[in-house]
């Protein structure tokens, strides 16, 4: 393989990592604040995809703009789901199986809603941008992937800003570190949890829209990405945002390069295997390893 090919693949992997990161950060927020593994994440990815699709199909709204619109829309949807269902179950310092199963039920319902509303034919978003590619010398990559990458990174930067510069953000970080201590210093746990859930779902919806620009989708969409999100947050450490970036990069690189030696039909197994290996070998993720190193130094 020539250097140009290698560089092309590497860039493709990085672009993919950006999207993966945006896709996974929603789960990290929810997990960090409420210790809930959001199994319904896939359902919201799917809804986000359809939202952006409908916005484009019916109202001719550019998909990138649709993604930006998805943030507030899904934020309120997320707060709604929290108010309706999630706040009724007990949460603790450890992730509970009750929350796992509840959100799994939500996922099943969302999937079916998708079928009922949109049927099961595959949809795709086709804009002039979709099939064009950018060429810089020997390097080329699809325009759409760059656009999606930019939006993903921008939203992550925005999140970082919120987490460090706003009152809400500081509450979230406080709760992620220590719930009781956070309460003592005056953080309103329920309010923060509700907003955090909303933000998590907002990212899920927007990420779904981003993915819809790259892939075709139907109501089953989301399951494979959910699994990838698991891999990423487990690799990265469930509560670390930097970890999400690292995890996304690792997964994207693995998927892009391992496939060159493995037969294509084994491709789905990469994510699954990484997941199992990560869970077993790195229970606290790469971020945990990093933290441990710091402690030992």
């Amino acid at each position, binding site marked *: 393989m020539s250097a140009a090919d290698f560089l092309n693949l590497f860039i493709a992997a990085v672009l993919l990592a950006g999207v993966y990161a945006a896709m996974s950060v929603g789960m990290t927020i929810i997990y960090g604040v409420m210790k809930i593994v959001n199994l319904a994440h896939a359902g919201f990815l799917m809804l986000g995809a359809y939202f952006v699709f409908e916005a484009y199909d019916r109202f001719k709204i550019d998909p990138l703009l649709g993604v930006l619109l998805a943030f507030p829309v899904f934020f309120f949807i997320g707060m709604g789901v929290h108010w309706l269902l999630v706040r009724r179950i007990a949460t603790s310092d450890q992730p509970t199986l*009750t929350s*796992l199963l509840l959100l799994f*039920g939500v996922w*099943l319902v969302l999937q079916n809603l998708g079928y009922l509303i949109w049927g099961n034919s595959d949809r795709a978003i086709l804009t002039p941008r979709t099939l064009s590619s950018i060429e810089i010398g020997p390097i080329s990559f699809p325009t759409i992937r760059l656009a999606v990458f930019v939006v993903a990174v921008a939203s992550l930067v925005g999140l970082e800003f919120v987490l460090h510069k706003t009152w809400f953000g500081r509450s979230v970080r406080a709760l992620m570190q220590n719930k009781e201590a956070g309460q003592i210093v005056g953080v309103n746990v329920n309010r923060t949890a509700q907003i955090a859930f909303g933000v998590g779902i907002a990212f899920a919806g927007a990420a779904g829209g981003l993915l819809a620009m790259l892939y075709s989708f139907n109501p089953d969409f989301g399951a494979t990405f959910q699994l990838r999100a698991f891999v990423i947050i*487990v690799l990265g450490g469930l509560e670390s945002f930097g970890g999400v970036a690292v995890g996304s990069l690792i997964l994207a690189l693995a998927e892009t390069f391992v496939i060159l030696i493995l037969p294509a039909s084994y491709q789905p*197994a990469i994510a*699954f295997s990484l997941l199992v290996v990560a869970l077993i070998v790195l229970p606290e993720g790469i971020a945990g390893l990093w933290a441990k190193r710091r402690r030992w130094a």
Partner: protein
Amino acid sequence: MGVKEGGNVGGSSVSRFVSVVVPLLLLAGLAAVPFVGTGPNVIRLLFMTLTLVTASVGWNLIGGFAGQISFGFAVFYGLGAYTTALSINGGIPPFFAFLLGAIVAAVASLLIGLPTFRLKGPYFAIATIGVSEAVRVVMMNVPFTGGASGYRIIDKARFVQSHHYYTALVLAVLAVVISILVRRSKLGLALIAIREDQDAASDLGVNPFVAKLIVHALAAALAAAAGGVYARYSLFIDPDGVFAFRNGIAILLMPIIGGIGTIWGPVIGAFVYGIIHEEVVANFPQAHLLIFGSLLILIILFEPGGVVGLFQKFMRTVRARSSVGSHS
């Protein structure tokens, strides 16, 4: 969530008698079905439901008694199906083929449990998803078993539906008996202790790791036997069918619907799931996820004990009312 449905509160001999008679009546009824002339479709439906009962009761051993929620039991169902299929094609009699499937799954459960039981709750659940799907993808590619094209059993014998039906019935009964025996044994107590608080249990002298491995193997063996019985009936299996993620979900949903951690909960849940699934899917193919998802949400929010929990609540209300005035 784990009170044994048998109404042993008070130890009344009437309730003991009833809790034996009702299942026996049910068993007699099921055994009589092929003679009552209900037609092959009902037998097929009940056959499928009985295999589900076996898998459901099996899952409940590890998921209900020990509290280790596995999303990936499709892997054992599939291993049982394929092992049985390969064995029958290799000339091994069906009974031994099922047994072989159970053994293979039990061994697999050890391989899976050893690394994953160290993980806590949801991480264990997620890991089981990964394992199950990884095996499915591998099976899709292994040429020896036909890969994605599936594998076919060449059965020279004439098809007698009742043979398969009774096999499934006997297996289901066996599963329930194993479940009762485990529940009443020291192992059962240990599992409940582990479920409530694993660290405290080990402080009290229980070895959680070994206990979980043992019951995981039993559970896997039962799920595999169910898969094997199914394979022998349908003669054609493929990875996207038997190893499908949705199978693992179904196996998990059934005990939750019926009453996780109880003896009869998984049985009731399997009947509810099996019959509703068939009828709902036939008439409203788009709605069954909605129904099961909503059911799951409602159960988690309002009655985590499932159908059995509902009955127990009902009984408590009735008993409370009747004990005002008379003594029970």
